[in-house]
């Protein structure tokens, strides 16, 4: 059955069993794939990193930090110095985890010569020179400026802890639950269970992480050629409902789909216009059609269900009349606007087309322009006044930092406000959690009211498993339990 997931109740009765081979399928990246944990970029890379390495901290389903290699952590009053207590863990080469390994990992991530370490900008707050190991199991991390978000930052992309003896990416030395047997970019990855894992180790003997397109993932699962498929389509979910051999494990509303309006350009420099557009969207319809009903409607803010999300802001509803009057006031009723999209992500073109139809109800003409998918994320910043936008799962502060600050590299909605930047900096350095939550909430409210994000929906995150598989948790991508294979077993 669909959606039911593998809640502990469903398969909790049977005790986990050891043994077997587990084949997991992901969208491949060809030669682009890597097992350098700090250069990871694709979901398939992250799944492999997760198998071979651990982080100090990881994120739970609500994007809140949970301890991994770091047992606990504490900050000084102004959040400029953090102390992480390490747990006893063994690397694959049999050596113990030490503070030096952690500092080495940070140093590797922040190596200015490495162009593809994406955590570099996030972790640039760390002052490596002043950070040091204390004793056998404590690391003191000094920051260049206050940040209350350090633990969450350490749970993001490209932050795995490697051994200080790690030099050749082809010979990974990690603490993960699996040990590498072979890897070929774009083709195959084979790892075996690491019996001395600190968390008790995995159940399956061998893990294979393979690349396959969406179609092939579905066919292979149904044909019994794989046990796990990551990121399945809604159509597959519908087909799977009738098929006893596969089961969908869905995390409700995990990522985000949006149409962005560039607030620094005509006519969206007028907040009335952006508001009118937000009022025009028929979100239920968009979710029903574009996401095939497998998702929840959005409220023009990122991070529904995550830590710091302001649940109290009422859901925006469609109001064509109000939108029309706003548009008339702004004088953009009979303009033709173009929306720049591409098929880089499923649903982009569909959502753009459908929204264009909906906007037509208010007498707006929107032209959909489809661009090159490979360079879309670069082109979208410069082309068109509107665009398609999606976001994977990340913490709300990360989202704000990466997408909505003046300095953000990928500020898709052209949202650049000095006061917003300042308020964000203040929230980030606020150590009191309640206060911080309030401050983030205010920032989100501003975006909701005036920003250029028409975040209409949050698709469910659909993974599929063969009916032989147990122990797969519902989890948004980029969280600890997503694509995590040390807790799965086969019956």
């Amino acid at each position, binding site marked *: 059955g669909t959606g039911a997931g593998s809640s502990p109740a469903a398969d909790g009765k049977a005790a986990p069993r050891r043994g077997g081979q587990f084949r997991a399928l992901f969208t491949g990246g060809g*030669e682009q794939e890597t097992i350098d944990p700090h250069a990871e970029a694709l979901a398939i890379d992250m799944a492999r990193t997760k198998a071979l390495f651990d982080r100090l901290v990881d994120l739970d389903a609500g994007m809140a930090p949970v301890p991994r290699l770091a047992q606990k952590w504490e900050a000084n009053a102004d959040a400029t110095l953090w102390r992480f207590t390490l747990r006893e863990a063994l690397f694959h080469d049999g050596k113990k985890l030490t503070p030096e390994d952690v500092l080495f990992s940070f140093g590797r991530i922040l190596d200015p010569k490495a162009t593809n370490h994406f955590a570099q900008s996030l972790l640039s707050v760390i002052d490596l020179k002043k950070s040091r190991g204390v004793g056998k199991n404590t690391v003191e991390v000094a920051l260049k400026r206050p940040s209350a978000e350090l633990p969450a930052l350490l749970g993001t992309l490209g932050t795995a802890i490697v051994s200080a003896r790690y030099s050749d990416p082809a010979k990974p030395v990690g603490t993960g639950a699996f040990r590498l047997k072979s890897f070929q*970019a774009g*083709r195959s990855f084979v790892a075996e269970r690491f019996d001395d894992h600190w968390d008790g180790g995995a159940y399956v003997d061998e893990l294979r992480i393979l690349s396959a397109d969406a179609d092939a993932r579905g066919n292979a699962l149904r044909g019994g050629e794989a046990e796990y498929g990551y990121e399945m389509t809604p159509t597959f979910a519908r087909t799977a409902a009738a098929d006893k051999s596969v089961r969908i494990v869905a995390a409700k509303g995990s990522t985000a789909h949006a149409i962005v309006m560039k607030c620094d350009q005509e006519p969206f420099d007028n907040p009335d216009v952006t508001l009118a557009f937000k009022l025009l969207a028929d979100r239920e319809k968009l979710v029903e059609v574009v996401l095939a009903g497998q998702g929840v409607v959005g409220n023009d803010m990122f991070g529904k269900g995550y830590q710091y999300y302001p649940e109290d802001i009422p859901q925006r509803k469609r109001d064509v009349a109000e939108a029309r009057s706003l548009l008339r006031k702004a004088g953009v009723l009979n303009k033709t606007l173009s929306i720049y999209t591409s098929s880089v992500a499923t649903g982009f073109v569909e959502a753009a087309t459908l929204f264009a139809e909906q906007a037509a109800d208010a007498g707006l003409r929107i032209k959909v322009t489809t661009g*090159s998918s490979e360079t879309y994320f670069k*082109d979208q910043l410069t082309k068109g006044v509107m665009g398609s936008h999606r976001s994977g799962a990340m913490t709300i502060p990360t989202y704000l930092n990466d997408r909505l600050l003046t300095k953000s590299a990928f500020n898709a909605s052209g949202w650049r406000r000095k006061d917003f930047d300042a308020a964000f900096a203040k929230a980030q350095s606020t150590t009191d959690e309640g206060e911080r939550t309030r401050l983030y909430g205010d920032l989100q409210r501003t975006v909701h009211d005036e920003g250029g994000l028409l975040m209409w929906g949050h698709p469910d995150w659909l993974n599929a498993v063969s009916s032989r598989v147990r122990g797969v948790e519902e989890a948004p991508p980029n969280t600890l339990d997503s694509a995590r294979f040390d807790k799965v077993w086969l019956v």
Partner: protein
Amino acid sequence: MRGYALQRLALGAVQLALLTVLVFLLTSLLPGDAADVRNNEDATPEQVAALREQLRLDRPALERFTDWAQGVLTGDLGTSLVSGGPVLDILAESAGITLVLAAVTLVVVVPLAVLLGIVSGLREGGRLDRSVTSVTLALNAVPDFVLALLLVAGLSLQLGWLPATWVGVGAADLLGQPALLVLPVGVVAARMICLLSRQVRAGMVTVLKAEYVTQARRLGVPRRTLLLRHVLPNAAVPGIQELARVGDNLVGGVLIVEAVFAIPGVATALVRAVEARDVPTVQGLALVVAAAALLFSLAADLVCHRLVPRTEVLR
């Protein structure tokens, strides 16, 4: 004939050289470069620029091309802009699988097509001919992608008789699991058999009416000898020429099959490299595919010339 073959080979070398220039120009027409494509939305412009420098894409196009060309002359196909490894590795991996697929397909296609063509050509207008012709005609009209979809849905997913994909399969596993080959080869072969057998049939029909066949029959040459020695060599010529022509279609059909069955072959690698703007890989793959096509058509021409020496191979 040897002189002709050498001349063609020399011409082929020139063609390939020009082709690489063309491929380079084509790929440089594409929007963005490998640095743009390799970075996702989280990369800063500085990172992209740094990557571009690291990949040495900031040099002028001419310099990049001559560098690459010099490498090729010394047997070095260059390094992939994406993996950083030698293009040769990518090529060896993907070409192995495609080669197996293509070879098996040919082994299936050629005898079957020739047989069908002969049988229906011999009975032109008869019931057998009409049924064979109708079937090949209809099958020929089903697009590869539709055929592949239907076969997978029916034989693999519904009935579970055959594997639906090649997920996780390497070239070495193929020999152990011939079942893997059935559907992909079936899809590629179906249309080739149709095209070829129709050509062979047409050749048979024409040759059977030729004066020299009539004369051989008048001189009492028995049916079997007539067919094998007098008719077939002449009748095979259009078929072989068609085979040379479908070589390219073969690669096209293979792409569909590779996509549907998740086969990591040359076609997939090529499309992926284009998408990633991995120019050295695109050029290396295009070079090899084109060279294979050239050799294939040269071989076909030589065989035709051997069968019927009068065939005008050169102008």
